[in-house]
């Protein structure tokens, strides 16, 4: 018997993504939707999308959604979760959104151990606004605001979000994954699922940092971008689980 082994998750609407060809935002969207499907929580979930290329995510997820102001998704999610503690709440944020303008909001949501899940898409650049430096831009990486490559004297060092948040007692689950090949896509999905489960079981704040590509602003074809991610981002941003709740609790 022929059986569908891979099909569009139900937690995605049927709207086509507006992302550039090969942009891994699309993969990450799908993984989140698959996890929502697998956990069977679509009807009970509220998502928060940021300002960034994923600003239109409210068109794609088939759940109730908020569009939040730039960087403030964690505050918005806090407001939602404190209002509706039995709902599943997630935010989806880019690296400019989360690690630059929204630094205070993510850190304090984590410190308070707000019971929501954050999908943090680190593509080392500001995608939406035209390829400016992000806090996560690598040293030497060229962007429209570091035309000669990021220079530590001038623009400082990339911020390691997973490591930083792991210092907070309130952060229950923190992992960094990548989506540069199918194996890692699978791992990424596992981490995302775990991050939702940690929320649902009330264990506290959970964040998954997903290394992602921006072929357009990196100025390379999509497959080259995946390779660049693997060769340049992973060494600086080691993958792994940075924090995990003790199993018995």
């Amino acid at each position: 018997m022929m059986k569908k082994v891979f099909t569009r998750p139900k937690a995605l609407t049927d709207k086509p993504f507006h992302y550039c060809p090969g942009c891994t935002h699309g993969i990450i969207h799908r993984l989140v939707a698959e996890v929502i499907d697998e956990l069977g929580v679509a009807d009970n979930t509220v998502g928060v999308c940021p300002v960034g290329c994923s600003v239109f995510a409210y068109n794609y997820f088939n759940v109730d959604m908020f569009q939040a102001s730039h960087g403030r998704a964690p505050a918005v999610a806090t407001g939602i979760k404190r209002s509706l503690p039995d709902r599943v709440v997630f935010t989806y944020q880019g690296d400019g959104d989360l690690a630059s303008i929204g630094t205070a909001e993510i850190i304090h949501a984590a410190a308070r151990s707000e019971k929501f899940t954050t999908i943090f898409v680190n593509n080392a650049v500001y995608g939406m606004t035209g390829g400016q430096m992000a806090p996560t831009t690598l040293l030497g990486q060229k962007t429209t605001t570091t035309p000669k490559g990021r220079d530590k004297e001038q623009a400082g060092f990339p911020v390691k979000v997973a490591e930083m948040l792991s210092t907070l007692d309130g952060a229950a689950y923190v992992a960094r994954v990548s989506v540069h090949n199918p194996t890692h896509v699978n791992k990424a999905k596992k981490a995302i699922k775990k991050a939702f489960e940690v929320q649902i079981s009330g264990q506290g704040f959970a964040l998954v940092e997903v290394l992602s590509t921006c072929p357009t602003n990196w100025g390379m074809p999509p497959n080259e971008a995946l390779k660049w991610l693997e060769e340049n981002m992973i060494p600086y941003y080691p993958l792994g689980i940075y924090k995990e709740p003790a199993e018995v609790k």
Partner: protein
Amino acid sequence: MARVTFREERCKGCELCIAVCPEKIIVLAEHINAMGFHPATVVEQEKCKGCAMCARMCPDVVIEVEREVAEA
């Protein structure tokens, strides 16, 4: 036996599926879709193992995969 189906009109021709297919059976079509991209397509369907690597990498959820499974 397995089958992959592409929702051509949604394909952006990014080639991520092409790169990961272990059977190397996906190519970009000659023609252009409504969005202006050469869509990916499978050339030797019969070689498909239904591994879904392509689908897993496709950022635009273009691909559906079916596979023969033992009746449970």
